[in-house]
Structure formats: C-alpha cells, structure tokens
C-alpha cells in the first residue's frame, strides 16, 4: 500500500494543526505541519505530498474578514503551485478557517468548472446570530462525487465559528452549485431534516455546511472532523455504549483510501 503523505499548513493564527495532523495519522497518512513561509521559500516541497490540509483557526486574526489575509497571501505567492497540486490529481481539504480561505481565494466552489480562481460568486460571512457558536451539528452529504465523503452517510460533528454563513451573489449561482453537485454537506437535524437555528447554526444559504469543487478532490467545510476521531469527544458519549463511532475519521480515511486506490 502506498505511503500517503499529508501536509498541514501552519500560519499565524492557525490553531487546529496538531489535532488535524493527528487525525490524518489515525487515518493512516504520514502528516507534517509546515509553516507557510517554508512553502513560499520552497514551493517544490509540495511535490512530496498528496494531501494538503488548510486547518482551522483564526489566520491573521481573521482581520478584515475570516480567512481573507491568508487567502490574499496564498493568491499572491502560491496560487500556481496549488493549482498544479490539484491538477496533478491530489487532494485539498479546508476545515473551518481553511474552508474560508479556499472560498475567499476562489478555489471553491469553482462554479464555472474551469479551475480559475473566482472569489466573486460565493463567500462566507458572519453568522446570522451575530456570535461565535460552538455546538454539534448533523451533516447530510449533498453529493456523491466527493472523495472525502461516504455517499449518503449522515455524520455528526462539532462546529465552532463566528463567520460560517455561506452566501452567493445571486440565485443563478446557487442553482449551479446545487445542480452541479457542489454541495458537500448540508446542516440537518438528527433525522435528516433541514431547519432553522440551531439546526442550521449560522443561517447558511440552502443550509450549506461544505462545498466541493468540480474535480471532487477539493473540499471545504465549516464543522471540524478532526475533533471527532475518538469516542469520548462525542458530547453524549456517556449515554452510549462502546460501539459509538467517531464520524470525523471517515473524512480522512476516505481521502487516504482514495489515494491508495
């Protein structure tokens, strides 16, 4: 079996890099945490990796807007190597702040399907409730063409963010996103039904919790799969027996499994 290597991006204010590295290792990948300055110095290092993860946190304090400053930095220093990384058939995953970065760079959701950066169609803005929220949410897959997702499998993950509302510039964009299978996950309740707050914790358009690009190999989502890889991280594990599954692992295992073929 091929040894899958994952690179976990570090930058000022990113703060979920350690647990993301651990989740990748649990899923069978070898993971390194690397500061963005090192990648800018030696972009060729990305050749060594098959998965790139943009972890959660508050890159550059989320100043101006969540993920904006880091997205700007990547656009101006790394957009070509990142494009090549994706075109080479490799995988990229953005979690929470990392999702915000991928959207604000314009890699996601890639509505035009041409792989060109487009940050003018979709954005992620302040939660409708006006506050940071830490709570657990059920997620229903919205597509079966994303390599990170087990089709049809509803999962339960924690979210923790203040700016997670996915918005589109117009209804036409929303229709394309729906029709072309760009919705990775939607917020639902335990039975799979959509609803208002807190089922949809941020007021996201069409209950969207995550997006996938046109290749199916680049995904971003607001909730944190790396925070549920152990039974005891479930908020009600004391009410369950030992068979309780940690849903977050599946995202990372699916990625590793896809690359191993």
């Amino acid at each position, binding site marked *: 079996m091929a040894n899958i290597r994952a690179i976990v991006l570090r930058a*000022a*204010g990113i*703060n*979920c890099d*350690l*647990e993301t590295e*651990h*989740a990748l290792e649990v899923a069978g990948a070898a993971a390194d945490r690397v*500061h963005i*300055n*090192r990648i800018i110095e030696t972009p060729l290092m990305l050749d060594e990796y098959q998965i790139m993860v943009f972890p*959660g*946190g*508050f890159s*550059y*304090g*989320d*100043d*101006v*807007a969540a993920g*904006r*400053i880091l997205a*700007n*930095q990547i656009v*101006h*220093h790394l957009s070509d190597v990142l494009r090549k990384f994706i075109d080479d058939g490799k995988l990229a995953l953005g979690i929470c702040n990392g999702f915000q970065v991928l959207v*604000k760079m314009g890699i996601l959701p890639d509505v035009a399907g041409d792989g060109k950066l487009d*940050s*003018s*169609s*979709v*954005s992620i*803005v*302040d*939660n*409708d409730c*006006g*506050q*940071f*929220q*830490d*709570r*657990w949410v059920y997620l229903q897959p919205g597509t079966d063409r994303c390599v990170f997702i087990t089709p049809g499998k509803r999962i339960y993950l*924690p979210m*923790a963010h203040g700016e997670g509302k996915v*918005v*589109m*510039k117009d209804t036409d964009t929303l229709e394309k996103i729906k029709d072309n299978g760009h919705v990775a996950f939607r917020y639902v309740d335990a039975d799979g039904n959509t609803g208002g707050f807190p089922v949809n914790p941020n*007021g996201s358009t069409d209950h969207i919790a995550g997006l996938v690009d046109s290749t199916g190999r680049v995904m971003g989502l607001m909730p*944190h799969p*790396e*925070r549920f*890889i*152990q039974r*005891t*991280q479930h*908020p*009600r594990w*004391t*009410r369950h027996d030992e068979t309780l599954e940690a849903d977050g692992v599946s995202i990372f295992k699916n990625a590793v499994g896809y690359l191993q073929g």
Partner: protein
Amino acid sequence: MNQWRFEVFSKDGFVDVFGAEAAEDIKELGIDSVGEVHFSKVFLIEADIDEAFASRIANELLCDSVSQECFPGRKESRASESVIIEVHLKSGVTDPVAESVVTAIKDMGKDVDVVRTARKYELVGHVTDEQCELITRRALANDCIEDVIYGSDAEPPSAHTSPYELKINKIEITTLDDDGLAALSGKMDMFLDVIEMRCIQEYYRSIGCEPTDIELEMIAQTWSEHCVHKTLKSSVDFDFDGEKIHFDNLLKETVFKATQDLDKDWCISVFVDDAGIVEFDDDMAVCFKVETHNHPSALDPYGGAATGIGGVIRDPMGTGLGAKPIANTDIFCFGEPDMKLEDVPKGVLHPRRVMKGVVAGVRDYGNRMGIPTINGALYFDERYMANPLVFCGNIGVLDRKKCFSKPEVGNLIMVVGGRTGRDGIHGATFSSGAMTHEHEDIFSHAVQIGNPIVEKKMLDTLLQARERGLYEAIGDCGAGGLSSQVGELTEKFGAEVELKDIPLKYDGLNYTEIWISEAQERMVVAVRPEKLDEISELFASEDVEATVIGTITNDKKLKLSYDGELVGELDMQFLHHGLPKYSRQAKWTTPKLSEPTIAEKSSYDDDLMKILSQFNVASKEWVIRQYDHEVQGGSVIKPLTGVDNDGPGDASVIRPKFDSDRGVAVACGMNPVYGDLDPYWMALSGIDEAVRNIVCVGGRPDRIAILDNFCWGDCKKPETLGALVRTSQACYDGAMGFQTPFISGKDSLNNEFINEDGTAVSIPHTLLISAMSIVDDVNKCVTMDVKAAGNLLFVVGKTKNELGGSHYYKIAGELGANVPKVDIAVAAETAKRLHQAITAGLAASCHDCSEGGLAVALAEMAFAGGLGIEADLRGLPVSGDCVRVDTQLFSESNSRYVVEVEPGNYDAFAKLMLDMPFGQIGEVVLGKKLIVKDGAGNSVIDSDTAVLKSVWQEPLSL
C-alpha cells in the same frame, strides 16, 4: 504620499450584523426614535500608490464582493434624517486589523505607510444631541480608547507622533517632609503611603543622590499591592469576637502553610513561579494559574477582559521553561443585568454592557489563541456593579524535566513578541487603588489592548525554541511590564538594559514609558550568547520579533541606559527586599443574624421555578457557546451535557495527550453571599464545592490541587481585613482536611468604588477556589444527566437546617443565619467513597447539590437527561433539625451528591456507602415530570421538566 479612504458595508439583501446589534443596544438604552443603524468599516490608507492600485486594495482585500460594497471617500447619507457617528481608535492604541492590512498589501507587492481603521454608524431617525451623547458613550464607543467624530466633515485624529528626545528627569526626594512625600506619591500615581515613601527617601539619602523618574516608577511598581501582595504578607493582629490572634505573616501561616504541611510529593513547584506545577504522569507536568483583571475590565470590558485572558495565558507560557497552554477558565462577577439605567452611578458602565463586553473579550482572545475555554461561572450581585470581577485562568503542560528556569550571568536578555507602546502605563499601581467616578478619565492609559495573533505566533515559536533548548530562562511581561519581569528574572544577579533597543509601536515614548509600559504579548528570555544566532533565526522564520535589550550581570544592580546614557540605577536588594513590613489590625465580630419565619406550603413548584430563574442559577449556555471548548481535540466532558447538549455539567475533563487516556478535570467553587454571614464558612463551602465538582465527573479526590483568588474591599479597614483573615484560616483548615494543597494564588484588593458624594461601595468578600485533578481513565468519566428509566437515585451526604444565604431565602428577600458548614472529615470521606463508586462503574450519573439545594439538583438531572424523576423525601438523610419540607428541598448544605445507580448495582453501591449518610430517594422514570413527595406522601413538587428547563434557560438567553 496619497491618502485613501474606503467605506465597506453590507449590500442590500445581506444582513448588517453590526448595524443590527447597535440598533438593539440603542433600544436597550430606551431610545425608540432610532430606526435602522447602518454600519460601515472605514479604512484610511496613506501610501505612495496610484488610483488603480488603491482600487485593487479596496476590491481584492477590503471588500467582499459577494456580500459587501465599497465606497471610496465619504458616503453621504441617503436618509432624510440621520446622524453619523464615526469611532476612531485613539492615537497609539493597538489596531490589529490595520497591522494585518499592511501585511496583506505587502503580499500584493506594495509598502504602505499608515493604515487605520474606524467604525461608522449611521443612525436613521431623529436623535437629540443629548441622546447622541448617551448612545455614543453607552453603546457605540469607549472613550478610554476611542475618539468619536460626528457628521461627515470632521477629520479623524492624526496617526502621527513626534520622536522622543532624551531628557533625564531627576526628582527631589531627600529634602521632602511627610506632606511632600505624600504629595509626590499622589502626583506620580505611585499609590505608596508615607511609610513606604520615607523608606525610599532614606535609601536615596544613604546613597547621596536624588532618584530619576524611572527609578521611582520602578520602585512603585515593584512595591505595588498588585505585584507584591503586601497586605496578605503583613503581620496581623486579629481580634476575633474578642479573642486575640497574632500572625507574623498572614499568607505564610495559612494558605502557604497548608501546602507546606501537606508536603505532597506530586507537587513540583508551588507559589514560586508564574503558575503552580504538579505531576500529570511519568513524563509530563501540568500547571495552573488564575489571575484577575478587574479594574481594566471596569473601564473597558472588552479590552480589559481580552488582555486578562491574554495575560494569564502567558503565565503558564512563562512557567518553568515554558508550558503549552491547554485550557482556559473564566469566572465573572457582575451587577445584575436587568438593573435600571438610572440606578447606575456616574463613571460606571451598565452591568449588561460590562457582561457583554467581558464575554466578547474573553471569547475573541481565547478562541483566537486556539485554547479551549472549558470551565467557568457567572455570579451576580449589585455590589459588583462598579467593580466587576474578571477571573481568568489557564492550564498548561510541560515536560517534567523543564519545570525550572535557570538564568545565568552573561545571558543576553531578549524581548520577544509584541512591540512596546504607551498602553497599560500604570496598570499595576492603578489596580492597587480603589475605583472612583473619575477613574474613567484619569486612568484611561492603564487600559491595555490585545492582539491575540501576535501572542499565538510568539507561542508557536517559543515552544519550538524550548524544544531545541535555545534559552535558559523565560518570563512574561504582565503587570509592571519589562520593569517587573527583567527585575524578577535577574533579581539574584543584576542586569544592564539599553532602553533604546526595545522595539516600539510608534515614536515618542520616553525612557520611563518604555520601561513600565504594560503593552501585551511580550515575553523575556535569557539566552546564552552562542545560541543567539539560532534563536534569532527561528523567530525571524515565523515573523516574530526578538530583540536583545541587555545582559545579565553579577553586580546585583539594575542599570538602565537610553542611547548609552545612564537613566536609572537601582540596588536589587533594595528594590526587591526594601519594602517595609507592615502590621495591620483586623477584627471580626460574628454578626447577630436571625432566621426568618416563612410559612410552610403544600406545594413548592413556584419556589423551585423562581430559584431556577435566578441569574446565579440559570443556564449559562449563552456564554458557554461563544467559547470554543473543543479546540486542540482533547475534550472529554464538556461544560454542557445531556440528551440535548445543554445540561449544566459539574466539571470539565480534557485529555492532554492524543495517545493516553489520562485526563485533567477542572472545576471551581465560589459563593460570596455566604461571606455576608461568615467568611470562614464561605471559604470552606468554596473548597467543598470545587472538590464535589471534580469528584462528580470522575476526578481523583487524592490528586486535587487548588488555587485561591481573593477579591476584597479596602483592607485598611479592620473589619474588611478581619473577613480576609477568617477566610485564610478556612483555607488552611480546608486544604488540610481535604488534603488539597494550594499551588498558586492571587489577590486583588481595594475593590471599592467611591461615589461622587464620597461614599464607598465594597464588593462582597469574594474567594474563588479553582481546582484541578487527575482522571486515571477518561473512559470512566460520568456526567450529571440521568440515563435510564428504572435506575435508582441516592443522596449521599446529610441535609441540614442550613438555609442561610440560600436562594430559597433570597427569593423571599431574606438572608437568614444558618450558613452551610462543612464537616471536613465526613466530606473528605464522602468524596473518597464516591470516587470509588464512579471508578467501579456504579454511578450512571452524579450531580452535586449546590445553589438551590436538592430540588434544583433533581430538576437539572431530570431535564438534562430528558427523563422524569419521582422522589420521596422519606429516603433523604437529614440532621435532626432538618424537618421542614422546604428546608429539605432547598437547604444548601455542603458535601451532598445525587447519584443514579442501575438496580443491578444496588448492592455493590450500598456496600460501598454502608457507614456513610446516604439514602435512596427515588428513581428515574419515563415521561417528563419531576415529582417529589413529602413524608406523608403528598406531592410537594409536581412539575413538567420542560417548563422547569425553559424557566432555567430564559433569563440569560441574550
């Protein structure tokens, strides 16, 4: 040079979150004439760029083209009637967003000179000048740190400061009389009394010169109550109801002594470092520190609380050779949030605004640092209105081999992290005095502004430097800034410092300001010269500033230069040990209190609902959800628990290592109202509560380490100090009895507010006990929500006639007399037995009885578990004088637990509890009813748990 101004605001159809929030805050002020509020972010950029590039900055960086619009210049109002209020930061106040914009524009290929940001509010509707002033002051701006300009034409304050030219300032002290000394102390805001000033005078007479300003400032800071805790360390003559007791050193003979007498081998470093350190496992140690940031939070709730948490995080970071922070705690005391606006005195912010600001400050700093906030409490009392209390704690982990710093002569002194600015000047001395209605104006410079990302970058880099062994010692710049930290780090040796080398945020600081600034996010490391290149390279590689500012010497002197010229020199011995020793008078007269007469009733449903909706009992979910309590991936027991993830957990548990099931349990205990009856029992109740909370989730009672935080009024008053002495005595007795050593502590005195008419309002005597323990196997942890119908419910611990200070009396407007006491031996044994039961897997759920007593505990367990409870008071273990139904339901007696046991485990559980006070009081049932029957079989409580839950959730859902 060109100047550009951009206004960024939400497009039509997208929610204007900040505008809506401002509109709500204005409504809360009772002003109905304002309809909508339109919010814009304002960016002011000075740079040598052309229009095309400026518009790229606006469109690519500042504005979200999907949801926002950007207007170049000043956008005029479209409304027929409106007011424009623009809020700018005062010159010199940290503006993290502006700093990030500078970095981002650099990524786009251009350098800019200055970026500033502001907030613009357009209030649509008719607003009088008077209302406008009120809105600005009470809702939109904080004049401690912000300037406000009205309308569209006014110019914002200039961002430019002029450079500083050296002028050494000598101050005559040797010739002054007592009045002159007092006047000097007052003029320089030294907060030192005449005895201390005389001591300084004598020192300068003996060395035959006059001090420079920097020397006096440094002495004042080092000798401040905040830094040296002179009250707690003074000798005290205590009159306790006529009995005379003498202490040579109050702290050493009470709190410290308990730790010494207990002499636990798992304590690694106690009371000496920035945080107390205990063993975690064979390789790792864990440390804990809790600080207060009360005075700054009173002036600027958001900034004060943010820098409170930011500051306490640096304590573990500066402990030993540096710990990695893994959890935050926060406990707040406020005035009641529904207080009428007109009842709030001049110079004081409304409790609701204080609360919102404090919570937001802790949220924004803690979340950005990537540290989970796992434990906390909120406590309301009108006496906290002018003196809110903000306790922030941090827990860190470090290698057991790296628990001690070892600075050496010849080491280079480096300052790392943030730059030094004029923020926080006189914070240490300011927080040692009482608040007055004028503080808001005079001490605005004492407010510090945080930038968490600077601290996070510094942390990331310091941990790597620690792993590579690149420094010999580390300490954080907290109260007293570089002055205090360099002084402490080099106390045993001596140091030379060049003040001009310290990186500044902006020009114009004089040498004294540089030295005593309390600017945030700075730490000091001592580095061997041969490692300088490697450590400098490491810091540069992650964009963190690290600058050599001096050297550790061996002449026991601190020499400060500016541009090569000596501006101050102090003898280390005098600085750190020259403070005169105090003797103080303390007195405690047991108050003559009586129990009220309250008629017995046949139903207590209404009382239970009233108690559940008290702010002190009500759900704190509004606060908890705003904190990330799961980052770092170690969460085991969360602050909210139960079938709907919203029940009130007793303590939190985290797992610091990915590859180990060993955990850390964290809890707290506090009940200031008991202090109105007897501070001794208040303190023991606090310790008992903290222990109970730890035990409830599965923490080991034999590994509990506790921390004390005293927040008190003016201890020059013998009665106030007397209450503190009683509390200290209880701390000793409690720590010994429970075998729980104190490992760290802090005090904040003079929490009094002087009204315009000169009257003083003191906070209640407030002791916070924070507790931390070990969980051997997190898989055995227990939560408080009932699990299954058919399970049996037991109460362990005796219910006594102890309604004094209870919520039952409070809703009747009474205080009472019978304060809950603690039978420490029984309490410690109860904790031990329960822990055995939990470890053996015999407890399906466990919850302690605290505020609101048994009835509240049962209600919480039922609605958290989504099931019903049927209880019968005949099974309740009670003392002989606890006969009335209301006493049994609502007494707040300590050392009691409600435990849920599966029928199959009955025998094993009963056997474990055999000689303890315990009894079966009922069982878990299907449905959603809480039914409690009295001895005669009548239902004294018969409530729908959904109703109980909603009255409990409603008060603080803001």
